[in-house]
C-alpha cells in the first residue's frame, strides 16, 4: 500500500508546526523522518495515521492492505504504551480482541508475533518484569500481530540504552525483511536513519517543511558490509550538514511560555 501526503499543514493555536508537506511512501518502502526536535515529526506521524486531523491538506492510501490486515495504520510508540496489568501475551492480544477469529486463530497470531520477536518464553510475564528492550519488543509484536499496511514508528528506540538499541535495530531489520511492511520511521539519530531507511526525509526547523529527501541506495542487508562503508558515511555526513545548523538554532530557541 502506498501512502500519499498532500499539502499537509498543521497549526497548534498560534504555533505553525508543519507547512505544506508533500510526500509519497511507496509500498514496501521504509521512509525515515529526521529533523531537529520540535520540527513537527511526531505531528506529521500522527496525521499520517489518522489520530490527528491536519489543519490543511490530506492523507490518502493507495492499493490494497495485506491479507488478514486488522489495523492498516499501526503505531509503535517511543514509551512502548503497554498495559502494566496485562501479561506480554495479553498486551499483544489486546488489539485482536475486538475482531472475530475462527477457532484458535487469535491464539495462533499471538504466538506467531511472540516468536517472531523472540518473546515466546515471556508470554506470561508482566511488563514491569521486562527490560526496556524486551518491552519494546512487546510493542513491536503487538503491532505486527495486526498485520499492518503501514507501520508508524515514533523514535521507537530512543528510550533504550545504546547496546539494546543496536540489538533491537537488527531485529527490526530482520522483521522488515520478512514482512516487507511499508514504514515511516521518525528518529533524531542519523545512524538509525542510514541503517534502516530506503529514503530519508529531512525536515527543517519549525514550521516543519521538507528540506530534502535523500535516498540510501544500498539494500538493507548489505548496509553493514565494508564495501559500502564509504557511501554510507558520505550519506550520513550529507544528512548531518543538512540538519546541523538547524539543530543548533533549535537548541538555542526559547519555548514560548504558554
Amino acid at each position, binding site marked *: 500500500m502506498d501512502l500519499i501526503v498532500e499539502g499537509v499543514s498543521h497549526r497548534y493555536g498560534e504555533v505553525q508546526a508543519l507547512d505544506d508537506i508533500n510526500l509519497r511512501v511507496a509500498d514496501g518502502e521504509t521512509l525515515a523522518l529526521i529533523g531537529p526536535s520540535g520540527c513537527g515529526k511526531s505531528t506529521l506521524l500522527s496525521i499520517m495515521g489518522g489520530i490527528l486531523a491536519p489543519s490543511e491538506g490530506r492523507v490518502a492510501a493507495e492499493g490494497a492492505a495485506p491479507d488478514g490486515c486488522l*489495523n492498516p495504520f499501526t*503505531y509503535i510508540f517511543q514509551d512502548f*504504551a503497554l*498495559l502494566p496489568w496485562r501479561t506480554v501475551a495479553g498486551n499483544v492480544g489486546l488489539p485482536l480482541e475486538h475482531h472475530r477469529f475462527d477457532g484458535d486463530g487469535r491464539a495462533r497470531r499471538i504466538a506467531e508475533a511472540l516468536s517472531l520477536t523472540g518473546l515466546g518464553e515471556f508470554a506470561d510475564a508482566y511488563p*514491569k518484569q521486562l527490560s526496556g528492550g524486551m518491552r519494546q519488543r512487546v510493542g513491536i509484536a503487538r503491532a505486527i500481530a495486526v498485520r499492518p499496511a503501514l507501520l508508524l514508528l515514533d523514535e521507537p528506540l530512543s528510550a533504550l540504552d545504546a547496546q539494546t538499541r543496536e540489538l533491537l535495530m537488527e531485529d527490526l531489520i530482520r522483521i522488515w525483511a520478512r514482512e516487507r511492511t511499508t514504514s515511516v520511521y521518525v528518529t533524531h539519530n542519523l545512524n538509525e536513519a542510514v541503517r534502516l531507511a530506503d529514503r530519508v526525509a529531512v525536515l527543517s526547523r519549525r514550521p516543519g517543511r521538507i528540506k530534502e529527501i535523500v535516498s540510501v541506495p544500498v539494500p538493507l542487508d548489505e548496509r553493514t558490509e565494508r564495501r559500502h562503508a564509504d557511501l554510507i558515511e558520505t550519506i550520513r555526513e550529507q544528512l548531518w550538514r543538512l540538519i546541523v545548523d538547524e539543530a543548533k538554532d533549535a537548541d538555542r530557541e526559547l519555548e514560548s511560555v504558554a
Partner: protein
Amino acid sequence: MSIGDSGKETSVRFRGGGFAPRPKRWASWLAFAVIISAWQIASMSGALPALFLPSPYEIALALQAIAADGTLARHLGASLGRIAWGWSLGTLAGLAVGISMGIWSLARSVGIPIVSALFPIPKIALLPLLILWFGIGEPSKVATILLGVFFPTVISAYSAVDNVPRNLIRMGQSFDMPYAQIVRKIVLPGAMPGILAGFRISSSIALILLVAAEMIGAEFGIGAFILSAGNLMQTDQLLAGVVLLSMLGLLISALLARLERRVLKWR
C-alpha cells in the same frame, strides 16, 4: 586512599546506612503487651479509678458478658448492616458519577461545581433533615453514610480516571478499539489503584458517620450501645464498645488490603 600524610593508609569511613526503617514484628507485639500490662498494673494498684478507666481485664470481662447474653450480636449486627448498605450504595453511586465525570466533558462541567459545593458539608448535619424525610428508622442512617461515602468516592474516581496515562488511551484508539472497550480494558483498570485508595478514605468516613448517626437516634448499634453505657456510667461496657469499633476498623482495612493485593497484583 590517603589523605594528608602522604603514604599513610586509612580506610574510608562508612557514612551510608540508616533511613531504611523495617518493621520488626516482635517490637510491635512487645510494645502492645507493655502498654496493656502497665495499664493493668496501674488499675490494680489503685492509681487509676475503676469508674473512670476500668482495667483491661474488666473490659475483657464486659466484652465476654455482652457476647454471652446476645447483646453484642444484636448491636454489632445492626451496625454492620447499616455500614454495609450505606458504604456499598454510596460507593456504587460515587463510582458511576465519578467515572462519568472522568470520561465526559458534560458530566464533568455539571458535576464539579455541585460536588465542590456539597463535599465540605459534614454529612451528619443532614441527619435531622434525613430523619424528617425517611423517619427515624434505618433509611435515614443508611442515607447519611451513603452521602458521606458518595462525595469522596466521586472525587477519587474522577481523579483516578484523569490519571490514567493518555498515551495508553491513544494507543487503544490507534488500534481502532471501540469506545466501550477502551473504557473497560484501559480506563477502568488504569483507574483501579486510585479507586481502591479512595475506598480506604470512604470506609473510615463511613465508620465515623455510623457511630455518630447511631448516637443521635438508634435503639441498636455500637454507637447507641456506647452512648447508653455512658449514660449508666458503665465504663467497662463503654470501653468494650470502643474496642469493638477498633476491631471493626481493623477488619475493614484488612479486607481492603486483601482486595488491593488481588486486584493490583501486577504492581
